[in-house]
C-alpha cells in the first residue's frame, strides 16, 4: 500500500515537474529586439514627449527617487531626503560612486542643473554631497515628483545628453532606431541583457508582423487587439488600467445652457459599450480621472449611461449648438470611438460632428504619469490643459474633493481607463512592468530554447 502510494506520488511529481517551468536563474547575454509606436525625435527628457517612450528613459537615465508598486518612494540616485520648514525646502542626499555613461562621476552640481532645466520655478543648488530644492509652496509630494521620468538626471554636454542608466547609446537614428549596450559599471549592477535594439515609429500591425516573424521579441499591442492576440496563442502582458481616455472641452462652460448640454453629453455616453464592443474590454469604464485601483474612491463617479436624464437636460436648452469633436486621425480606434460618441449624443438630442482640425471637444488619451495619486492627478490636469487643481491637504479626502471640483468644472468628461498591452516572446524571462506601466527592461533576460 505504501509502495503504491509512493509510486503514485513519484509519477504525479514527475508529471508536475515536466509541466512546471524550471525555476531558472537569470542568464546573462543576448540582444532584445523591441518595437515601439512612439518615435521620439530626441532622447533628452527635456525635449522628448515622454508619454509614449518612457520605457526608453529607464534604459539611459535614472531618477533620484523611484516609486514601488504601492506608490511608495524608494531610493535611486538619492539615498535619503528630508524636508524642512513646511515641506518647502528639501535636502536630497546623493548616492556615491555613480557615474555617467562617459565614466564621469555624478555630482550635486550636475543634478541641480538637470532639475533646474526641467523645473524652472524650482530653486535647486548643491551643497556637499546633497542638493537643496526650494519650492514656492509646500511640496509634500516632492519625492514622488522626483520619480517622474521627466525628472531623470541628465548631463548635457556639447549637444549630447548623457545619463547614469544601465545602458549606453551605441546607435541613435532619431525617431527610427535606438541601440543601447549594457554598462558593466552601472551602479545597480550590470543588466542581464548585452544590448537592446528598439525600432520606433512602427504601427501596431507592423509590430505584430515583426513579432510573428521573430524579428522582435517585445511589441506593443493595441488595447482592443489584446484579447484576440492572446486567443491566437501569443503571450500577452497587460498593465493595470493606466491611461485615461476622456473628452476635453476647449473652454470653460460659457452659459447655463452650455453646462446643461455638457451634462447631457456626459450622461448620454455608454462607456460600458465603448469598452466591451469597441475596445474588446481593453479598459475599464470610468467616471473619474484617476482609476479606482489608485484611489479606492473612483466608483463614486458614475459611469452608467442615463439617456432619460440626458434627454431631460437637453430639453431644458432651447437651442443647442453644434460641437466639433476632434480626435487623432492617425489612430483608427479613436475614430471608431468618436463615431460611437457622436451616435450616443444624437440619442440625447445633441449635435456633434467629427473634426480633424479645430474642435470644441477633443478625444484624448493621457497615460498616468505617476503611481502617487496626487502627483498623477496634478500631471493629468496639466496634460489635459485645464487649470491646475488646488488640493488643500495630503489626505485622500482632499484629493477626492479636488478631483470632484475639477469634474464639476465640466472641462473634462472621463470615459475609460485603458490597459497597455504588449506581446512578449516566450524566450523573454522576468518580463515585468511597474504598476504605472513602465517596462522593467533592466531585469529582463533571454532564455535559450530548452533542448
Amino acid at each position, binding site marked *: 500500500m*505504501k509502495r503504491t*502510494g*509512493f509510486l503514485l*506520488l*513519484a509519477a*504525479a*511529481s514527475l508529471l*508536475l*515537474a*515536466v509541466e*512546471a*517551468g*524550471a*525555476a*531558472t*536563474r537569470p542568464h*546573462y547575454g543576448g540582444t532584445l529586439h523591441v518595437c515601439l509606436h512612439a518615435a521620439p525625435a530626441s532622447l533628452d527628457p527635456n525635449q522628448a514627449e515622454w508619454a509614449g517612450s518612457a520605457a526608453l528613459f529607464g534604459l539611459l537615465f535614472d531618477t533620484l527617487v523611484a516609486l*514601488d*508598486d*504601492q*506608490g*511608495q*518612494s524608494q*531610493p535611486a540616485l538619492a*539615498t*535619503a*531626503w*528630508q*524636508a524642512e520648514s513646511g515641506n518647502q525646502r528639501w535636502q536630497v*542626499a546623493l548616492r556615491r560612486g555613480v557615474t555617467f555613461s562617459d565614466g564621469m562621476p555624478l555630482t550635486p552640481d550636475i543634478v541641480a542643473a538637470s532639475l533646474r532645466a526641467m523645473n524652472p520655478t524650482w530653486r535647486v543648488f548643491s551643497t556637499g554631497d546633497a542638493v537643496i530644492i526650494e519650492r514656492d509652496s509646500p511640496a*509634500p*509630494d516632492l*519625492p514622488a515628483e522626483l520619480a517622474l521620468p521627466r525628472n531623470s538626471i541628465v548631463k548635457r554636454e556639447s549637444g549630447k545628453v548623457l545619463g547614469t542608466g544601465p545602458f549606453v547609446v551605441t546607435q541613435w537614428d532619431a525617431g527610427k532606431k535606438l541601440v543601447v549596450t549594457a554598462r*558593466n*559599471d*552601472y*551602479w*545597480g*549592477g*550590470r*543588466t*542581464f541583457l548585452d544590448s537592446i535594439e528598439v525600432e520606433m515609429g512602427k504601427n501596431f500591425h507592423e509590430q505584430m508582423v515583426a513579432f510573428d516573424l521573430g524579428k522582435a521579441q517585445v511589441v506593443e499591442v493595441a488595447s482592443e487587439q489584446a484579447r484576440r492576440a492572446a486567443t491566437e496563442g501569443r503571450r500577452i502582458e497587460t498593465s493595470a488600467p493606466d491611461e485615461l481616455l476622456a473628452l476635453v472641452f476647449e473652454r470653460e462652460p460659457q452659459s447655463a445652457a452650455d453646462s446643461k448640454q455638457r451634462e447631457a453629453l456626459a450622461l448620454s455616453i455608454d462607456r460600458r459599450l465603448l469598452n466591451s464592443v469597441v475596445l474588446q474590454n481593453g479598459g475599464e469604464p470610468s467616471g473619474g480621472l484617476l482609476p479606482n*485601483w*489608485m*484611489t*479606492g*474612491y473612483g*466608483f463614486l463617479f458614475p459611469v452608467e449611461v442615463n439617456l432619460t436624464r440626458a434627454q431631460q437636460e437637453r430639453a431644458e436648452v432651447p437651442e443647442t449648438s453644434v460641437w466639433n469633436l476632434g480626435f487623432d486621425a492617425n489612430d483608427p480606434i479613436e475614430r471608431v470611438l468618436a463615431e460611437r460618441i457622436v451616435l450616443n449624443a444624437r440619442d440625447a438630442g445633441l449635435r456633434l460632428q467629427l473634426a480633424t482640425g479645430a474642435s470644441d471637444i477633443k478625444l484624448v488619451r493621457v497615460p498616468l504619469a505617476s503611481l502617487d495619486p*496626487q502627483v498623477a492627478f496634478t500631471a493629468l490636469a496639466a496634460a489635459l490643459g485645464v487649470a491646475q487643481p488646488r488640493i488643500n491637504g495630503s*489626505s*485622500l*479626502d482632499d*484629493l*477626492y474633493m479636488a478631483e470632484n471640483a475639477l469634474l464639476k468644472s465640466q472641462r473634462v468628461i472621463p470615459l475609460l481607463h485603458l490597459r497597455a498591452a504588449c506581446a512578449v516572446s516566450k524566450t523573454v524571462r522576468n518580463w515585468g512592468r511597474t*504598476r504605472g506601466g513602465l517596462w522593467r527592461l*533592466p*531585469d529582463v533576460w533571454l532564455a*535559450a530554447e*530548452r*533542448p
Partner: protein
Amino acid sequence: MRGQHPKPVYNARIREMPLPRAYCFRALCCLLLIVPATVVSATDWHGLEAQLARKIAAGTGPGAVFLEVTNRSSLSSADVDEIRRGLWTELAALGVHSVAADQAAATVQVSLSENAQNYVWVTEIRLGNNESSVVMVTAPRTEPAAGERPAVPLTVHKALLWTDEHRILDVALPTGTPQIMIVLEPESIVLYAVQNGHWQAQQTLAITHARPWPRDLRGRLVLRKDHLVDAYLPGVSCQSTTVAPLALNCRESDDPWPLGTDPLALSAFFTPTRNFFTGVLSPGVRKQTATAPFYSVAALPRDQYTLWIFSTTDGQVHLWDGMTDQTATKWSWGSDIAGVRSGCGPGWQVLATARDEGAGDTVQAFEIADREPVAVSAPVEFGGRITALWTDSDRASAIAVAQNSETSRYEAYRLSITCSR
C-alpha cells in the same frame, strides 16, 4: 497617503544609512505577533470602525439612519460581517440607530474599497433630498497568508529564520552557546544573538567592494573552526576575526568558493561579474577537474563513491561520479539544487527548485535511482522566487531564500527533511 505622516522624515531604511538592527528586530517581532491574527481576521478593524462612525455621526447627527455596507475590496465576507457589526456598535454608541429606509432621516452608504496601499472605506451620506456628502477613512492593507500542501512520504519542512526588506544571500547558524545567527546581505554581515527568546542584532560588519555587484547577486557563508566565518561574493572574499567584537576583512579575490566540507570537500571558481560558477573545480572529483558552467551542485554519497550533481547554466543536469559525466536534459529542475542528509531511505536527498506558474517557486526532494530523479516529497511552496539555496554547514539541512512576491521582502528558511514512510 502622506496624510498619515504629517512630519517630513527621512525615507525608509537605506543601505547608506543603516537603521539599528534592534528596530528591524522589533518590527519582525511585531510582524510575527500580527501574522497569526491576520489569518483569522485580516486586521483589527476596531479603530477604523470607530473613526468612520465618528465621521458618519458628525454628518448625520444622532437619530435614525438607513445604513448599507457594500464590499468593493478583497476583504472576505467574514471580515465584512465583522466590520458591519462593529460599525453598528460604534454608531449606536454615538446615538445613531439603524432603521428601515422609509423611516430614516438619512441614508448612509458605506463602501469598503481599497487602493494600491490602503483599505479605503468610503461613506456617502444623504440627508433627505440634499446632495450627498462623502467621508472616508483609510488603513494599510494586510496580505493573507498562503496555505500549504498536505504531507507525503518524505516531508520537507521549512522554518522561517529571518526576513528583511533587503536581499538575503545566505544564513548560517553556528552550533554552540550562545546561539547566534549570521545573515549575509549585499553590503554587510549581521550577527544576531538570542536574547529573551528572540533574535537580537548584535553587530553589523560592512562588506567593502570596489565594483558594483552583478544583478542576481549571490553569496555564500562558510563557518570556520579557527575563526567565525568566511563570506564569498562575486570577486570578493571576506574573513572575520576570531574574538568579539568581530571585524571583517574583505579583499578582491578570485579564490574558489567552498561548496562542501570534508569528506565532501569541493570548491569552485565563481565568475566575478555574473551569477554562476565557471565550471573549474578545485580540487576536482577524482580525475575530473572541470565541467560546464553551473549554478549549483549537490553531493549524494554512495557506498563506493559520491555522486555529484551539477545544475548547469544551459539548463541541463550533469551527473559526476569521478569517472563519467552523464548529461540529463529532461529533468526540469530549476537552477538551484542542494544535497541534504536526512537519514531517510538512502540517507541523502537532493532538494531542487521548480516554478509553479501562478504561484511562487517550489522546492521538492528527489532521490536518484538508476540515474533518474524520483520525487520523494511534495513540492513545498514559497511565496515568490527562490533566490538562494545552499546546503547548510551541518549538511542535514539547507538554507533557502525567497523573495515574497506580495511583500517583496526576502525570507530565509531552513529546510529539513523528515521520514514519514
